[in-house]
């Protein structure tokens, strides 16, 4: 992903993406992307017109574009990411993007060495837009390529990895604070604790923890989080390690345990963040596939 053209990938910045895991696609071919666009447009049009869900009076002309994003992948072995965009053109003739989703594989190396010829592994699917479109597009992929989708949750462990990863990135001084949100279990009323840290403080802490630049270990992540927890305990006498980490947000990106991510900064560093995040999530998707 080093030679990425930032403009091509700018679309994925500053949007919330909902994560799904996808099983390998059967008989998917990059050579047929135009046909896929045509068929998917027809499918969406037909679905929208069907039955009692007809919205009379709303005149929408749906256009679907399925395209390849050759830059967005983790390594040469990975299949290029596939972008699906749903646009409407209204009478004003101005096209409006109403839904987008992309399949990607940024896991690299020998994950898919044994993948048989007819299958394409793009284990991560990220969507932005109304869920009704996600459902229609997902159904079409399911029926056409015999794959299945499932929501991908992000575990607290992975969230703490992301916190460490994003803290280590260089950002300017005006960057917004790093925020960790915890939920306290076992209470009748839901209680969330928000823990905000100045980005420079967090970076300074991370720099003392990280041994080799460009490399992160589980141990380092644990130490980093433990330091943050003990600092919080000193001030508020609350042990955050007993609560569940549900959301991490930094100037670069944010991630929620429900499987929603958003990359804010970019494009260069944003793309890097996406690739890293993808790497982290790919094995997750793969074990579920």
């Amino acid at each position, binding site marked *: 992903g080093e030679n990425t053209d930032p403009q091509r990938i700018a679309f994925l910045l500053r949007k919330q993406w909902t994560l799904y895991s996808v099983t390998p696609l059967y008989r998917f071919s990059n050579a047929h992307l135009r046909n896929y666009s045509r068929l998917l447009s*027809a499918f969406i049009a037909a679905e929208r017109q069907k*039955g009692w869900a007809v919205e009379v009076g709303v*005149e929408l002309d749906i256009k679907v574009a399925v395209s390849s994003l050759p830059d967005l992948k983790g390594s040469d072995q990975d299949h290029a990411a596939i972008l699906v965009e749903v646009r409407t053109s209204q009478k004003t003739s101005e096209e409006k993007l109403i839904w987008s989703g992309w399949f990607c594989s940024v896991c690299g190396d020998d994950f898919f060495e044994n993948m048989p010829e007819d299958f394409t592994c793009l284990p991560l699917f990220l969507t932005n837009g109304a869920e009704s479109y996600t*459902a229609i597009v*997902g159904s079409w992929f*399911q029926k056409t390529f015999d*794959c*299945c989708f499932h929501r991908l949750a992000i575990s607290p462990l992975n969230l703490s990895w992301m916190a460490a990863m994003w803290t280590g990135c260089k950002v300017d001084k005006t960057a917004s604070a790093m925020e960790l949100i915890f939920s306290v279990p076992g209470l009748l009323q839901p209680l969330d604790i928000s823990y905000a840290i100045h980005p420079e403080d967090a970076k300074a802490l991370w720099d003392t923890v990280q041994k080799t630049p460009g490399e992160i270990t589980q141990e380092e992540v644990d130490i980093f989080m433990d330091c943050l927890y003990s600092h919080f305990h000193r001030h508020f006498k609350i042990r955050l390690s007993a609560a569940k980490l549900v959301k991490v947000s930094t100037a670069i990106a944010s991630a929620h345990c429900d499987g929603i991510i958003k990359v804010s900064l970019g494009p260069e560093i944003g793309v890097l963040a996406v690739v890293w995040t993808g790497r982290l999530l790919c094995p997750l998707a793969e074990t*579920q*596939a």
Partner: protein
Amino acid sequence: MQRRQSSKTPKQPLQGHHKNQTDLSAWRKGGRIDPEKSIQNHQTPDRQKNDRQQDSLEQALCYFEKVQERVSLKKNSVLQKHLATVESVALQRGLPPEGFEVLLNVALSGKFGDTVNTCLLKSLVPASVIPESSIISSVSWLCVGKCSGNIQLLFLKWLITVFDFIDHKEQIHALYGFFFSFLQDEKMCPYVCHLLYLLTRKENGESGMQSHLQALLSLYKLFCPELVTITLPGKMKTYFKNSEGPWKAAISAIRRRSQGNSPLSQPLFLGTAQPQSRKRKWNTQLFIPASSANRNNLEQDRGKKHVDLYGTNKSFPVEQLQTFPQLLENIHRLELPSQMGSVLTNPLLLHYMNCIKDESVYLRLNYWMGQTLQEECTWCVADNQYEDEFKDFLETVYKTECFLQEGFSSCEEFLYKSLPLWDGFCCRSQILRLVSWIPLGSFSEMKSHLYDPLAQLFFTSSLYFKCSVLESLKELLQNWLNWHVIHLDSASDPQVCSLNTTLSGLVNVVAELIQFVGWISTVALRLENNPTFLLYFILDFYETVCDMYLRYSLPLLIMPPAGVFYPALLSMDSVSLNQLCYIMYRYRTNLVAAKENEQSKKKILQFKFSSQTYQEYNQYIIAMVGCLWTSTAFQKDIHPQGLHMDEELLKKTAMQEFKTSFNIVYHPAMMGYAVLFLQQAWPDDTTFNFSLIKGKKWNWYLEYLYAQGLKGLKLFIESSINRVSQASCSKAENTQA
């Protein structure tokens, strides 16, 4: 097609009418759509009201089903009452699937006037789904034209509105031509167009310029551009007026109400679920896709690249596959379903799967199944309460494995992942049955993934659970052995030989399973204090083990551990003792056969039974004969964990005649028979003098035991006890006397 010349007569409803007429009370009690279920705890008065409504709805439907001659509304208070019931229930809760056929048949048959028919049609608000069969019979009523044009129109409007609620649409698609013929009717034309628009699929493209026709044509053009040559306006217009029927608002209201009450009703509506729960996102309900062929235009492009072997490139769509002969006729050109998961519910496709060797078919199925199992697993995924659905799914997977006689790798992985987290309770019988289809694997894998978690649950769970585990491990063993036998037959096939399991590998894995069962059985017998019930399942397992050489051609025999053998030998129950005798008889038969093969050396034997197996067998036989026959067990048993006891020690017990205490007369499992035998042989003697059973009487007693069904004992005594002459027999009796 002449639409008013149907052969249908009003007195003969379509076939299947009565079959589909299911019990209404089933809908009330069992339904996943039952809105009462979730609120019944705190809304008892409402519930009673619902029950009353329910009863009167049943009565009303009965009335409409049976009503024969034309009745006028004004004069008939019964009809008025039932009509009001249907109307109010429909608007409040929606009608159950069973109601539609009855009411549609009445409304379209012209038995009543249009006022009643209109009222009935307006009440057709679905609570969940509408059975396809009811639509089919309605169309046939439409063809005979018993009802007025207004009612026909209203029916079409209704059908368009509720189109998505119809449970299946395959047969309706088959009526495409019928609908097409209705286009001639000017009034009906716009609605028929709308309906055809909903029904049209690619293959229907093979068939004037008003907007509704335009819409239909534009869809035709989309699917088959080569067939529609006229130019259509590029911009999408509002081709169909929203059918202004009364149903839409009622349907929404009922949906809102039932969604509030029961989360289970939501999966019916893909993509419109409430966002708060993970489970109700699109596509997260557990469902097995229907078999349908891939309507992807690209398949045609791709087909051209392949060489057409059979002189035809027309494939046979999977939806049309209904019978086994059809499968046989079209097996060379059968198009596989677009979603392979659908084979689980299609027995014909399972037959097909059994004979194809395409790896991608299994891969597609496994990818889908693996993800579905993992995502729906009720104990692996937090706040997943859909245990019944998951249970049904596991059941389906198990049945498929039985049918294919093969375990799925995705299911194996799922078991390995989920067993360590399993409580041993949730979906118990399904999980344990799936265990029996785990394919042969390496021992290290089996140990950490299967044996260790299973043992933990086994030791800490109930007697019943222990027996269930033993039962499923027995089936696992049998499945492996069957697999071995089948692959032995096809050993000449090099493809099969390349499977990673060599004979020695197989022998090792099987031996390890048997040793594992021997170990947990020993511990379980001690923990549970030797109950007969448990012993039965353990010995049942060994009934397979003792016959592996002869029945499954596997060069392996393993004796049960002493912890199993002695509790069975000294059991209080004749069933266990008889079972043990049978097992020892089969061990003997197998060992003798193996020895003969070894000696004849006709075949070069890869494997020989270790002398340890023979030695163990001999030790057990000495103990058994010593106990049951010669009354010498305490002296002669040489097994280190056996019955050998010092004579001095035995004397100190102050027991008289300790020597004979386990022979076939005095053995606690046999004494009941001995008493009955004495009563029959000496009816007048009430002293129960067991020592009378000797000499000829001893033989009579044996015959008596055999006649009581102790076949195992018979086989054992006849094979393992040398009774060549009467002399040795009397000698044996002398020692026991």
